[in-house]
């Protein structure tokens, strides 16, 4: 536990110092929220005010950009540059390192979500969520599941150069197709068919049900199961194939 706390402090410091992470985790989701909110924040989508509908989807975009894409990219860079190999040479237990990285990522996502909700309230007068407990559980489920997928994804990518491109090529279209930015109901049939298998679709369904319709998280066992199953698949992939050494050498 002492090692975990020590490493968590280190990881948080690294998080705060990283301009890339600051941009992708904090600024980009907030900027997109402001931009999209300004465009159709006053429209009505599925009977809800556009900005309110958007905010719930942007929490889904936040989870993939922070816990999935951000985590995968910086872990790939650390692996391929040899930092993970160096860590492996020390007595720090591998679990303590991974746990600290995950905890730092979750804290970043929590802050990002709070900032998003505060911004929605300030700029677009989106009401604050009233199912706080369910919302926290939902975001936690998403953060854990997408972080597991992010770690799993690192096992499929071999170079740091390809990391950004490959990860962006997955998470940006996924955010779009899963309806983070718009209502997926207006999508053509083939996009909806793809959306039906993506974990983010189900996570956003959860955030919208909790934030817009006042549902409790546990009233959505089907969506929970899909998100959890994807997370489990990522965790299994990571547990089996996670590497601490660069692909070459």
């Amino acid at each position, binding site marked *: 536990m002492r090692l975990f706390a020590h490493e968590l402090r280190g990881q948080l410091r*690294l998080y705060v*110092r990283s301009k890339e992470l600051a941009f992708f985790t904090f600024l980009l989701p907030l900027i997109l929220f402001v931009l999209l909110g300004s465009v159709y924040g006053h429209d009505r989508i599925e009977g809800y005010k556009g900005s309110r509908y958007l905010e719930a989807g942007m929490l889904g975009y936040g989870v993939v950009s922070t816990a999935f894409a951000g985590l995968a990219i910086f872990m790939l860079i650390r692996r391929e540059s*040899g930092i993970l190999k*160096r860590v492996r*040479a020390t007595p720090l237990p591998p679990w303590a390192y991974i746990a600290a990285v995950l905890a730092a990522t979750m804290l970043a996502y929590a802050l990002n979500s709070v900032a998003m909700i505060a911004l929605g309230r300030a700029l677009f007068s989106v009401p604050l969520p009233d199912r706080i407990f369910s919302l926290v559980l939902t975001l936690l489920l998403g953060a854990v599941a997408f972080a597991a997928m992010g770690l799993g994804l690192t096992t499929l990518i071999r170079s740091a150069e390809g990391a950004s491109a490959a990860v962006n090529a997955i998470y940006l279209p996924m955010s779009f197709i899963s309806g983070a930015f718009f209502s997926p109901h207006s999508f053509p049939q083939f996009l909806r068919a793809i959306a039906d298998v993506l974990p983010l679709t189900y996570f956003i369904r959860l955030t919208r049900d909790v934030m817009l319709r006042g549902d409790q998280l546990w009233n959505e066992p089907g969506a929970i199961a899909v998100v959890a199953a994807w997370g489990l698949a990522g965790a299994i992939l990571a547990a089996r194939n996670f590497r601490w050494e660069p692909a070459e*050498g």
Partner: protein
Amino acid sequence: MTAVAVAVAVEGLTKSYGEHEALRGVSFEIREGDVFSLLGPNGAGKTTTVEILEGYRRRDGGSVSVLGVDPVSAPREWRGRIGVVLQSSAMYETLTVRESLALFGGYYEHPRPVDEVIGVVGLLEKADAVVRKLSGGQRRRLDFGLALVGDPELIFLDEPTTGFDPAARRGAWETIRSLRSLGKTILLTTHYLDEAEQLSDRVAVLREGLIVAEGRPADLTQSPATEIRYRLNGEDVVVRSEEPTRVLHELTSAALARGEELERLEVRRPTLEEVYLALTQEDAR
């Protein structure tokens, strides 16, 4: 038990990558407190050997003992007794020197004080500089510091000065000497001969997965004969001898007796460089 404690013992070590036999039966011992160099050209098997000792790679055959432990089944405490400097020198770019050492020092039971480590590796002026802004030589010194901060008994240095300019190399050598003076056992790999000669107590020359020579740097240049060269009747004569004093005495006495001058008389020892080239390039001859 031998009188001198052995920090590392390697016996008949073999390792193949597919068809390629990287190590073909490597054996050596490193005594506690020694600086031991594995010297050889690229691809000779130096990094493979070191990474097996560090526990990164599995061997195919032979036995390995590092601080009395087989690295394959080493407990995590064992990692606290070794320090590793990898070739890549990767570190967190956004931390300062001090923060990096504090972060890694925290992984160990009994770390050395951060300020002391900064002094040992000569980074006092750069203590609060961000890693990204360090020069190559300064990064390498921080690298040594990161390997030292856990106060290990044994330090592995894999090609610590490759790609350095002469000044940076000398700086790194000074740091390695200061690690040695702290009583650390050091295993160094290098393809620079002068580096091995300058720093080591013992040198093993590795070529194509085999150790082709081993001993003190002076011993390696001892074995080949001394060369005596002179010119006689317009022709170069080279005499190689294990007893150069006697041979030279006979040659010069005879020449004096005949009233001749031994033109261009020269007596020289092969440099370690020549021995090394002879050892590592036998096939090319």
